[in-house]
């Protein structure tokens, strides 16, 4: 059994519960044990770096320090926002020793060496993909729009994940499931992210563009790997539809849910019943 460090992040305990459920179900199916970072805290997300730089570094740094203390060599971070914050923090601190000292002082913990931070797609590529074909029972035989969002690929210098324009990794994974990824231009357009609650009007506009484009290009599902994107595209659908004055019902799936469905996991295991936009099996 493979044992890996795991940082769920706050969303996966709340609005993105189904994401967590599908990740855990997949891990079980592929014989992987995901061990949570002990006593983890929130990464601070957009709010922290909007308001205070040291805070925006200290919160993720504490998570890294906790993981290091637990002897973790890598952590799986399914939430794209957390993945981005953790990666950027680790990069900044190990590039700038003075800053690192300052942050260590603030959190009263130390960081000795960088650890591997894997997003969910990297996790799938490394640990699921090699054994995927043998587990597929029901190919995901649909046109899909793979939606990467901002935080998986940017800032590219630091994350070094896939390519900046027209990324392909999720598309390739979906192909393995039997899906037909569509070519579309909004793979990395912003959904409105943290403005979800405070400026729902803007989110409806930005996410609306994405939902509309995907639908018009024939996608039967949007595949994502970010709880924020999911929330904006799924939970905000009624706002989107009223902004666009048209009913769009293309479902939004986490990539882990899509894999789960193809591998025959039930709705409870994938958590798709929790979506506000209905998913037809």
């Amino acid at each position, binding site marked *: 059994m493979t044992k890996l460090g795991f940082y769920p992040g706050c969303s996966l305990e709340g609005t993105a519960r189904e994401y967590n459920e599908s990740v855990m179900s997949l891990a079980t199916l592929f014989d992987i044990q995901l061990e949570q970072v002990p006593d983890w*805290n929130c990464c601070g*997300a*957009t*709010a922290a770096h909007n*308001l205070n730089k040291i805070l925006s570094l200290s919160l993720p740094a504490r998570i890294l320090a906790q993981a290091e203390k637990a002897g973790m060599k890598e952590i799986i971070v399914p939430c794209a926002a957390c993945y981005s914050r953790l990666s950027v923090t680790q990069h900044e601190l190990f590039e700038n020793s003075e800053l690192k000292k300052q942050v260590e002082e*603030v959190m009263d913990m130390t960081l000795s060496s960088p650890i591997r931070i894997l997003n969910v797609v990297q996790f799938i590529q490394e640990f699921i993909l090699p054994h995927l074909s043998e587990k597929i029972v029901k190919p995901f035989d649909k046109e899909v729009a793979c939606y990467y969002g901002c935080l998986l690929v940017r800032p590219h210098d630091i994350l070094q994940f896939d390519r900046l324009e027209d990324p392909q990794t999720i598309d390739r994974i979906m192909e393995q499931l039997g899906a037909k990824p569509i070519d579309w231009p909004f793979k990395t357009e*912003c959904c409105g992210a943290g403005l979800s609650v405070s400026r729902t009007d803007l989110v409806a506009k*930005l996410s609306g563009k994405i939902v509309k484009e995907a639908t018009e290009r024939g996608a039967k599902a949007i595949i994502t790997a970010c709880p924020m994107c999911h929330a904006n595209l799924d939970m905000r659908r009624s706002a989107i539809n009223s902004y666009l004055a048209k009913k769009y019902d293309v479902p939004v799936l986490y990539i882990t849910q899509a894999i789960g469905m193809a591998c025959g996991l039930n709705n409870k295991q994938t958590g798709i019943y929790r979506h506000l936009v209905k998913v037809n099996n």
Partner: protein
Amino acid sequence: MNNELDIHIGVNPARCYQCGKCSAGCPLADDMDFTSNVVMRMLQSEDESLDKELLQSQAIWLCASCEMCISRCPMEIDIPKIMDYLRQQSIAKGLQNKSANKNIISFHHSFLDMIRFTGRSYEIGMIADYKLRSRKLLQDLTLAPKMFLKGKLPLFPEMVKDRKNIKRIFKHIDT
């Protein structure tokens, strides 16, 4: 502020040659009072009144940190970092944009306060707090019950055990 940026965050606005590729790709450019290349120009001007206008702008709060601008900027100017800095300065100087203060900034505060007390974010509490701050009591009134039914809004917050440590982190920030 032009010089400050170089010192504090190592970004030099003088590098901007106003090609506008940032604004062209910015998802929120249409809604901003100043597009990103104009923000850069205002910084280059080293004009205090423009600095102030900038700190009072809505644009800096509308920026969603999607990083599209820097990823396509030919001069690799870290505009998101500049935006972070401007937001922090805006608060430090009490110049927050009035309309953004009502929603976006309030939300950030609610979010951080939640972490300050629990170590993690917790949507119900946070949203309740935000509603009080923003006085948007009716917002999402229809969404919440749906989410609750889908099990997406737990009633009680998960908490970090070592809350002292979290407090310590915030304390350093506050002082």
